[in-house]
């Protein structure tokens, strides 16, 4: 049989054609499946190949004062990033970069660390580059493949150190922050609030970062910076309006004596914080674009601890201002009235057991009623009042007055006061017979195992200003549950205490801070310090008849023991500025001196083992060393 007979060939040719069509059909189907059916999937994958997402910083919301003045805002800035395919090429790029813009080895190490954290994103080199630097880099762009310069909103605090502790500062989010989910919604490389209001209201202020895409080749080298794919614009953070009175805050900063540590809190009787100032301060603008290593070391190793917000993060012995708490407790319990005298008049001290407890005034005050004792801050009167009330009641009622709790202000982290919850505390610490009623005497004049924050004491005086009804202080105007605490005073008792506080200023320990235009009411105090330098307190409100502002202030380690002038004049100035206005200010230089009503001598305060308190990165405040 001839296989090459045309008829035979015809048959095989037909088979061959069928096979060809079939096999080509298979190919076509395969391409149809890949290109038409699975197109979307491969399209995405192709984009994943070539596009690298670069986050676009969202402008942080502004922080405004009570009248809309700017405390924190955004100004245009530039960030400089480098995109590299490997660590080695990044190192090489940084070497090139150094020739154009000087950066130190610490910064280089940081850049490499950022690269390790997210190798598929451009690593931040300069978070806040000046226009000159950017121009210089643009000039050398050809030498720097992978250079990404982004216009970015930059945080700015126009009042810098005047508002530092209230606004806090911002910083780049770290990997550990993210793993602990400290900042929900934040992404690596993002900027978050690290302290103050910036931290407290970070979720509102932060906004949502956008995304921009750069195109890379198969080796991960940047090929195209612009226009590779549509950009997702960032969503700006929302602004927050605070209760802060910015001019008042600035004023406090301007009158604060150089070199003195301390804090001021001013609030309305309704609990709106008007000013919060802590000295020494720092410049939050230093943190923009990443704080330099040397500056950070300076801030953290400075013995004055400028990062510490002494208004809410430091504890001080309350001293004489605590005598008002004693008075409230005694009046409420009906133990005394405002006119009650104690059995033993003040002759400069009180013999108790085998110890003699001095009054701050060696000559003695004579026989005083409660009003006079408050005005003169007579220790002997309060020693006896403490013994009458009894330590268990003092502690129990003190807790009721809020001396054991944080104020709950919307600014963290707030330190918790130290206040024994009952006499069992002393039994535990010193053994049931290890302590005597001398403790009661200490407590009665605000010494002993009782330390309070400035905000905590101010809160108490706000309660006094309100006639015994206290509200939780807050900084941001937003509906938050405000705890109302009633001291349980009758109207008459509240007025009596107000009269006493007025008397302090009119004829008592703060008589030098009288104001002509309005009546200041308040209480001076000196917290003892073994080093010999005492902390001066003044807590008060004005105008006394219808309070509009409550001010608490402390200055640490003041010179002198029985100086004539006090912290009170500063409070008077602040109140005057707020109530009367800046024009009325007397340009009188102030002298800083300790109030005279200091307690007779330092009292023992054993190292406390109270509950751990949340404290900011610099752990504990440098309050007077006590053993």
């Amino acid at each position, binding site marked *: *049989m*001839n*296989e*090459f007979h*045309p*008829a*035979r*060939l*015809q048959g*095989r*040719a037909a*088979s*061959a*054609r069928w096979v*060809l*069509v079939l*096999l*080509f059909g*298979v*190919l*076509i189907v*395969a*391409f*149809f499946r*890949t*290109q*038409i059916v*699975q*197109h979307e*999937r*491969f*399209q995405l*994958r*192709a*984009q994943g*190949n*070539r596009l690298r997402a670069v986050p676009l910083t969202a402008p942080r919301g502004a922080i405004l004062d009570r009248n809309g003045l700017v405390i924190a805002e955004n100004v245009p800035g530039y960030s400089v990033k480098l995109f590299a395919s490997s660590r080695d090429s990044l190192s090489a790029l940084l070497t090139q970069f150094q020739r154009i813009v000087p950066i130190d080895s610490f910064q280089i190490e940081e850049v490499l660390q950022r690269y390790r954290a997210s190798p598929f994103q451009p690593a931040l080199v300069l978070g806040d580059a000046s226009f000159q630097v950017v121009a210089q880099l643009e000039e050398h762009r050809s030498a720097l493949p992978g250079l990404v310069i982004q216009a970015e909103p930059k945080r700015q605090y126009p009042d810098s150190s005047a508002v530092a502790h209230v606004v806090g500062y911002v910083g780049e989010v770290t990997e550990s922050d993210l793993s602990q989910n400290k900042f929900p919604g934040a992404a690596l490389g993002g900027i978050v609030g690290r302290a103050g209001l910036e931290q407290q209201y970070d979720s509102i202020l932060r906004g949502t970062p956008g995304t921009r895409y750069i*195109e*890379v*080749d*198969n*080796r991960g*080298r940047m*090929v*195209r910076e612009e226009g590779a794919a549509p950009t997702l614009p960032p969503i700006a953070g929302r602004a927050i309006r605070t209760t802060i009175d910015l001019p008042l805050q600035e004023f406090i900063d301007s009158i604060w004596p150089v070199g003195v540590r301390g804090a001021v809190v001013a609030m309305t009787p309704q609990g709106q914080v008007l000013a919060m100032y802590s000295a020494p301060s720092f410049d939050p603008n230093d943190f923009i674009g990443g704080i330099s290593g040397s500056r950070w070391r300076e801030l953290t190793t400075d013995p004055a601890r400028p990062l510490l917000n002494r208004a809410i993060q430091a504890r001080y012995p309350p001293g004489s201002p605590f005598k008002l708490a004693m008075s409230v407790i005694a009046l409420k319990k009906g133990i005394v009235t405002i006119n009650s005298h104690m059995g033993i008049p003040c002759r400069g001290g009180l013999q108790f057991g085998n110890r003699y407890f001095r009054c701050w005034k060696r000559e003695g005050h004579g026989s005083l009623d409660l009003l006079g004792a408050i005005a003169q801050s007579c220790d002997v009167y309060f020693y006896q009042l403490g013994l009458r009330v009894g330590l268990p009641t003092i502690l129990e009622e003190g807790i009721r007055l809020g001396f054991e709790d944080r104020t709950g202000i919307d600014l963290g982290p707030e330190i918790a006061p130290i206040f024994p919850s009952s006499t069992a505390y002393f039994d535990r610490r010193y053994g049931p017979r290890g302590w005597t009623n001398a403790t009661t005497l200490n407590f009665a004049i605000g010494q002993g195992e009782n330390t309070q924050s400035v905000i905590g004491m101010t809160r108490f005086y706000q309660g006094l200003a309100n006639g015994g009804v206290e509200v939780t202080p807050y900084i941001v105007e937003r509906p938050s549950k405000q705890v109302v605490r009633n001291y349980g005073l009758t109207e008459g008792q509240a007025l009596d205490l107000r009269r006493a506080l007025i008397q302090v200023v009119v004829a008592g320990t703060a008589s030098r801070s009288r104001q002509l235009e309005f009546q200041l009411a308040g209480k001076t105090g000196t917290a003892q310090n073994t080093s010999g330098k005492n902390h001066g307190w003044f807590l008060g409100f004005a105008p006394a008849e219808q309070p509009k502002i409550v001010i608490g202030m402390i200055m640490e380690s003041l010179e002198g023991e029985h100086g004539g002038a006090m912290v009170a004049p500063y409070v008077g100035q602040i109140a005057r500025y707020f109530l009367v206005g800046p024009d009325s200010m007397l340009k009188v230089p102030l002298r800083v001196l300790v109030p005279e009503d200091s307690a007779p001598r330092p009292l023992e305060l054993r190292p406390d083992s109270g509950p751990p308190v949340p404290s900011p990165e610099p752990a504990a405040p440098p309050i007077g060393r006590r053993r």
Partner: protein
Amino acid sequence: MRGLTIDRTLVITLLLLIIFGVLNLYSAGQTDVPTQAIGVWKRQLVWLVIGGIACYVMFRTSPRLLEWAAPWVYAFALLLLAVTLVIGTGQGTAASTRSWISIGGHQLGQPAELAKVAVVLMLARYLSSRREAPISMRELIVPCLIAGIPFLLVLKQPDLGSALVFIGILFAMLFWAGVRPYLLILLASPVVSLLAAFTTWSWVAWMVLLTVLLLIWRPFVFEAVFIWMVNAVMGFIAMPLWNRLAPYQQNRLLTFLNPEIDPQAAGYHAIQSKVAIGSGGLMGNGWLEGPQKRLAFLPTPSTDFAFTVVGEELGFIGVTIALVLFLVVFMTMVRIARRASDPFSSLLVFGILGMLFTHVWENVGMTVNIMPITGIPLPFFSYGGSFLLACALGLGMVLRVAWDSRMSGYIEA
């Protein structure tokens, strides 16, 4: 007489494919990052000129002369392959292989490409010299040897892709010579057994099927037993054989089954090719505009994965046009083979068809992952001098056969 013209359909289709191929090769060089593909299209043009001359020379060469020269050409090709194994060099991605003959550092060409044409010639001569088509396994031994020797020599280089082309040529020509399909299936059965041996169950199933087929088709008893034995042996030696494969060959086969097992290394090419093709969609990204190619995600866009560029830039439509052009070429060649004036010419044409088809199907199939990745060029699209020359020689012969059949006044049956 239909007039003294060459086969217009074939020439026009081929020219379209060549233009398509050169444009595509030009595009392959247009990347955002420097690759080796830049300017390759110019060199391809040079080779096209050389190929055109070779094609013309073949067109003017009588099939009788080719028939006479076939053994010499075949012997020369085997000699070159043997020499290549000793002094051969590698190139590019296959630097460790011995596929190239080079003198003084200049790479002259790949003898495997010449061997493909030589095997076609030799098989055509042998099969056309027989009065009857082979009807038993025994009679298939000689053609198997003719294709098998160069197959083994090329496999030894190692160049699995090119070696497979010899198998394609062999089966195509045996079929065209009139060998019954069942014999071809039995011939291929050991390989099926080898593949089926990956799992015991599939192998057992295959052996049962083979037994049934043998009972139905009833070949010579001795051969039937022999084939059954060979299949059985294949099942047992599958694993040792697998272990003897070079790791990269193992990887290629494994990644063919599932490219995602090693997306960064062995599966990278397969995945990137499919991603590029898939992202092309219906219309493609536009000529010169394929991002995966531009950013060099696509491996070897000028050689093995030239067709991927078509898929990415011209989309499903471009792919379909290219494939239809190829199909037209093959259909025309079937027609020419059928109308050839003598068996040698007819087998020659069908052998060239087998060679080209194997290349097209394996190469295009590999770009969409329906075939394993073997470095095998696509006619007219992939850059490669030796291969283009081999194609030109073959197509010159095909055109001559077409011319001759028209000259002979062959009348359609």
